[in-house]
């Protein structure tokens, strides 16, 4: 028996209909999905936005630590967030945060055992996309009104 380097491999040995052994793909296996489908595209987007939000958490920690460290370091952090790259980054993070929040609500709704049929999945999927655009626009509108 070949050495198993990954404990999951013990569960991933399958047989084809002709009896030959085959290594089953890891889940979630992207190659099995058509990424133009809304259901799978929104699913992987939820994971990607979740990963990107960890960068947002680093920014929040930086902002708080800079505020605690004193006025000079706080002004340095504020300068970055107000710079061109900072504003673009924060705009992206706002959209990412709202998408992950709204798609997360969709997952909680699914966890209740409802909304799995295709028409409802597409309806809630579209609601997540429209909601993300609307809430991102609203957040930056509030920011611009405060800024001016």
């Amino acid at each position, binding site marked *: 028996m070949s050495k198993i*380097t990954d404990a999951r491999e013990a569960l991933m*040995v399958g047989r084809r209909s002709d009896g030959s052994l085959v290594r089953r793909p890891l889940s979630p296996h992207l190659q099995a999905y058509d990424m133009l489908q809304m259901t799978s595209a929104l699913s992987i987007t939820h*994971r990607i936005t979740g990963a990107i939000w960890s960068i947002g958490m680093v920014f929040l920690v930086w902002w708080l630590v800079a505020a605690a460290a004193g006025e000079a370091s706080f*002004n340095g952090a*504020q300068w970055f967030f107000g710079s061109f790259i900072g504003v673009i980054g924060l705009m992206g993070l706002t959209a990412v945060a709202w998408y992950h929040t709204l798609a997360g609500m969709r997952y909680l709704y699914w966890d209740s055992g409802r909304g799995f049929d295709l028409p409802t999945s597409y309806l809630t999927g579209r609601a997540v996309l429209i909601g993300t655009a609307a809430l991102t626009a609203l957040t930056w509108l509030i920011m611009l009104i405060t800024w001016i």
Partner: protein
Amino acid sequence: MAAPTIRSLRSPLGRVRGLGAAKGGTHHWWMQRVTSIALLPLTIWLVFALARMPNATWQEATGWIARPFNAVLLLAFLAAAFHHTVAGLQEIVEDYVRGEMTKMGTLLAIKGACFLLWLSATLAVLRIAI
């Protein structure tokens, strides 16, 4: 991917028995849901609160953080958000990283980094608020 070879007379079930954990496999999943429910109101509050102070001076920002209501919610947000972040990143690593040592190394690095970030932010809020 090369097809695996099995040089054993033991059945697939016999070979996998004892390799998995079982008994309790839902805690990670459940805590991900619990923290997500907690983060729902906290995120909405934090995003709109931060959106209303783009040009805050140091005095205004620390004054806002120092208010007990804001400080408590910030501490709650940090705890729930980092728990949720670690759990989510762990899920991604477990899905895509192959090899037990690489996987464990990545997971320990992520958990260590997130723990230090959470401690730093929590200390910062406490230092400003107290």
